[in-house]
């Protein structure tokens, strides 16, 4: 169900939703193509920022196109999955092939290739072991030849020496995580908040439950908490009409 990136089944670019980011500025549809084609690194794009802009754009144009919003959601979901795949340690390789499916022929070819590599890996291990029985001489030229070493201070100044020291002593680079928006709200807190509100009110609208939220992410987490409680059978949800008010009722034991 990959939204086809370069085809016609996405909204026309009337007053196209555009983004302005360090790595790219222009229509989001173009950015999405570039990301899906891996011409831009997904980790260079703050998806949270893009989403904020999209919502703002929806408000500005006062014309929510369901088609456009759906397409945007689908693209963001895929980008998030790619991004998570890039950032999280994992056992399975998540890549385009996995999303699109790999042909059985390719799987078979790879299994033969891999089994060949496994056999040859054993051989490499044996060579390595044999070779470890031989010791080289690491002393280099003897001290009598120390005069052949060049007079290094003839060529450099203190600043050069500092640069060389920095290069040799530099600690390994830290992983840059600035493109990941930190999550400051936890699900556990949100569950507790919902439980506390309902304990007081017995029944409440979703709007009431998030009245004390300051940030959108906090509202999102609280909504997820609500879904979690619903899944556990602790709350009952009711929504009279699409986009209507969500009524929440506590069903679990008294909190």
């Amino acid at each position: 169900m990959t939204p086809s990136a370069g085809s016609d089944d996405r909204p026309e670019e009337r007053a196209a939703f555009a983004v302005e980011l360090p790595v790219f500025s222009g229509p989001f549809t173009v950015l999405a193509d570039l990301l899906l084609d891996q011409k831009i690194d997904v980790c260079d794009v703050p998806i949270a920022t893009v989403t904020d802009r999209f919502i703002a754009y929806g408000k500005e144009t006062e014309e929510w196109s369901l088609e456009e919003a759906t397409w945007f959601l689908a693209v963001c979901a895929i980008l998030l999955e790619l991004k998570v795949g890039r950032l999280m340690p994992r056992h399975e390789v998540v890549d385009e092939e996995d999303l699109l499916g790999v042909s059985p022929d390719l799987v078979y070819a790879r299994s033969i290739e891999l089994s060949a590599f496994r056999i040859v890996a054993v051989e490499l291990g044996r060579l390595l072991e044999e070779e470890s029985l031989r010791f080289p001489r690491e002393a280099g030229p003897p001290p009598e030849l120390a005069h052949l070493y060049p007079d290094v201070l003839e060529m450099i100044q203190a600043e050069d020496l500092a640069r060389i020291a920095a290069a040799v002593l530099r600690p390994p680079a830290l992983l840059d995580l600035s493109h990941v928006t930190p999550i400051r709200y936890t699900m556990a807190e949100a569950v507790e908040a919902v439980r506390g509100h309902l304990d007081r009110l017995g029944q409440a609208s979703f709007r009431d439950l998030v009245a004390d939220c300051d940030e959108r992410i906090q509202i999102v987490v609280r909504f997820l908490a609500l879904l979690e409680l619903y899944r556990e059978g602790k709350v009952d949800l009711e929504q009279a009409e699409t986009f209507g008010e969500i009524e929440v009722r506590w069903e679990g034991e008294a909190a």
Partner: protein
Amino acid sequence: MSSVREVEALLFVSDEPVASVALAQALGTSRQEVDRLCEELAAAYEERGAGITLRNVAGGWRLTTHPDAAEAVERYVLASRHTRLTKAALETLAIVAYKQPVTRHQISSVRGVNSDGVLRALVDRGFVAEVGREETPGRPVLYGTTPEFLERLGLPSLSGLPSLAPLLSRSAEDAPAED
């Protein structure tokens, strides 16, 4: 006229494999002559049961101790050169060696599991290094084996790797299962 004596002396002060051409330059002779002298010297060591051996590894000539003296040397230097690589590391090393230059992604595809950690360990140990970037979107890093890899395996060059072709024609079922 250069001699075995001079070649042996140069090899003795070298702390890495030395290309014939470097020896030839220092001795004012030809590469062919150097190779001939080295082969002569290697044979002489072998013949007299010397504690030293001379072999062509990693593109150059290199003196090392004889394997039969390994136990005594280890006791003496209180160290072992023994490197135990895990099965996963050896498998990844094999893929890099035969498919180089190769991207992280390609390695993981062949192995079917994420190999980033194991690849980093091989880079840290000097067996594998970045050798460039692929001219495709995202310009992923390309990896290849290092001269140290050849040295640590005692191979003269990459063409000294065991042939993969006969293994590829064998069926996948013969393969040792991964544990």
